[in-house]
């Protein structure tokens, strides 16, 4: 007998037969999801916060976890980020060439900052990415305002390591994509219907309290997280 058969056999021998049949079981399950929805729904503001209010809350939550966050218009953010990166001494930044945001940032970068394209498999330039790149730029799929969380869905254009390996992670998130909390994000985006191979919920720079309960930033992931929340004119209305 395989381990699989042995384990499932022992579990099946112990599961009590459903007393009231499949209908009762289905009704009970619907109850569980309804209870979860009611719990998180009851704690959410009514009427729902506007994108501008969500952006303010997102910014405050990010600052509370030691990230830097700015609200900026859709025509302002490339210059803002370029100036900040120059000040911080960034020399090489991973920026894609495929998205409009990637191209806008590239166009705004001064000569002192070299944009690097992630256009090869990681194994072809692993040492270079780990050793020579100062920052990685990503556009978040959405954000969670209550906790200052970025919802990152890495793909072929923006691979997983862009937001992970460089010491500075620079993220852009649109105010109109912000959700009140994790429960709202999961349901509004219907995560259960299609999960990417990797979905990352990132809240601020990496941290640890493993040495005598003392909080330190920049453990293994990014040491600094910058987030620009784009509040364009349509959002403001």
């Amino acid at each position, binding site marked *: 007998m395989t381990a699989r058969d042995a384990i499932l056999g022992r579990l099946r021998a112990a599961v009590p037969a459903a007393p009231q049949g499949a209908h009762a079981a289905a009704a009970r*399950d619907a109850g569980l999801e309804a209870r979860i929805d009611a*719990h998180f729904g009851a704690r959410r503001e009514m009427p729902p916060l506007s994108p501008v209010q969500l952006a303010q809350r997102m910014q405050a939550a990010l600052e509370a976890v030691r990230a830097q966050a700015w609200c900026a218009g859709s025509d302002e953010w490339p210059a803002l980020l370029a100036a900040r990166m120059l000040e911080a001494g960034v020399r090489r930044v991973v920026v894609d060439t495929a998205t409009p945001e990637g191209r806008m940032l590239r166009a705004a970068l001064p000569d002192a900052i070299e944009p690097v394209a992630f256009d090869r498999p990681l194994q072809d330039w692993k040492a270079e990415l780990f050793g020579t790149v100062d920052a990685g730029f990503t556009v978040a799929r959405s954000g969670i305002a209550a906790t200052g969380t970025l919802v990152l869905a890495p793909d072929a254009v923006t691979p997983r390591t862009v937001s992970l390996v460089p010491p500075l992670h620079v993220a852009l998130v649109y105010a109109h994509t912000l959700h009140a909390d994790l429960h709202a994000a999961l349901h509004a985006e219907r995560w259960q219907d299609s999960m990417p191979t*990797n979905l990352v919920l990132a809240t601020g720079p990496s941290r640890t309290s493993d040495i005598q309960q003392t909080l330190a930033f920049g453990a293994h*992931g990014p040491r600094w997280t910058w987030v620009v929340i784009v509040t364009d004119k349509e959002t403001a209305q």
Partner: protein
Amino acid sequence: MTVSPMQFVPPQDFHARSRAALDDPHLRQSFKGAMAFLQDKRRSQFGDDDELQRLRDLGEAVRRNALAKLPALLEALEATLTAAGARVHWAATPEEANAIIHGIAAERGARRVIKGKSMASEEIELNHYLEARGVACLESDMGEYIVQLAGEKPSHIVMPAIHKTRADIGRLFADHIPDTAYTDDVDRLIQTGRHTLRQAFVDADIGLSGVNFAAADTGTLWLVENEGNGRLSTTVPDTHIAIMGIEKVVEKLEHIVPLASLLTRSATGQAVTTYFNLISGPRREGELDGPRALHLVLLDNGRTQAYADEELRATLQCIRCGACMNHCPVYARIGGHAYGTTYPGPIGAILSPHLLGLESTADLATASSLCGACGDVCPVRIPIPKLLVRLRTEANRDPHAEVDHPLKGQGAKYSRGERMVWRFWSGAFARPGAYRLFRWGATRLRALAPKEQLGWTRYRTPLEPAPRSLADLLRARGQPE
């Protein structure tokens, strides 16, 4: 850098180790401070008690729902992950799990494994097993790295190096990491750890991690961490192996939302941790990074024994937050190493007997005053004190008694002498004639009371009957018996 082999401590020496821990003022100070810190952090997250109690109800309901459907959910998880291109393995024992993982390493010619935090891998002593076969394992969680460097084991399931001060760690780094001067500055120590381990992520052939939750509907492994070492371990090497106990699966991804909130707030007092890393398959065609092979090892190791018994099944509701140990007056005084088990504290006392058998773990359930703090803080409402009492009963049951769900090591603390004393006692109290005879004999022959009275006299003065019984005294005062 040298990594010494890990100590292996037998849990049956619990009494001796607890005594040693109690006599170590340095250790007691470390734990006292750490427990107060973690209790405060948790409290700061649960200001609204009504919300906490409702969330605990939800957490319990989600876990109980998952356990009720466990075999079907494991099959569903296997099917969804397999469809996504992952491989799912089943291991009934630690030996099987180790052999599976070594087999994957051997197949790929892997020499170096970088590890994210995984208590299941501690449970099966994976590092030992692989290193004996020429595969190096390096822990990358800062706390795990520190205890590995010191040749120790974690003393807490969430904060592995909680027994060490920053001065201890400063000396450890200076002694073991080349070109490292002593410092007790925490920021500098963390930066040393970061730089030392960075190249290891680049060089590793395999990344190994645990799993906090798994969703059967989407085939998602949900990993919770702060440092980013978990993401690096599961992203940079070409192969990712995840290992989890069979109880960690839940029915739906959305069921994890309340559990994740309970876990981070109970464990470290954070509304969320820095990363929730949701993995639903290996690298897809066109993606430029991420592991090309993803393996999931499902580990039983005694969990099906707890599952078989309706009362003990609640043990498997655990989400490994560590709140029970943070609030346990016994754990706070003796620390995690005294237990000698992978999982210390109250959860360790109720889980370890299923993993290791009662022969070596029966004492753990007695290391409790049954104050109830563990049950009060448990985010998924495991009735820990009730289960401690149940395990004491099982440990004292006649080893040959036939019961519906016998536990490994039933009757490990069974003593014929103790059983006879209790039988005599209940017999004497149940029959007035026998009781009067006993009373008469005991008061007259009190000088003959034995000086050694089983376990009682190990810590207490011997019991000696009074010269006159209460009934005699009452009669002397003119009151009827």
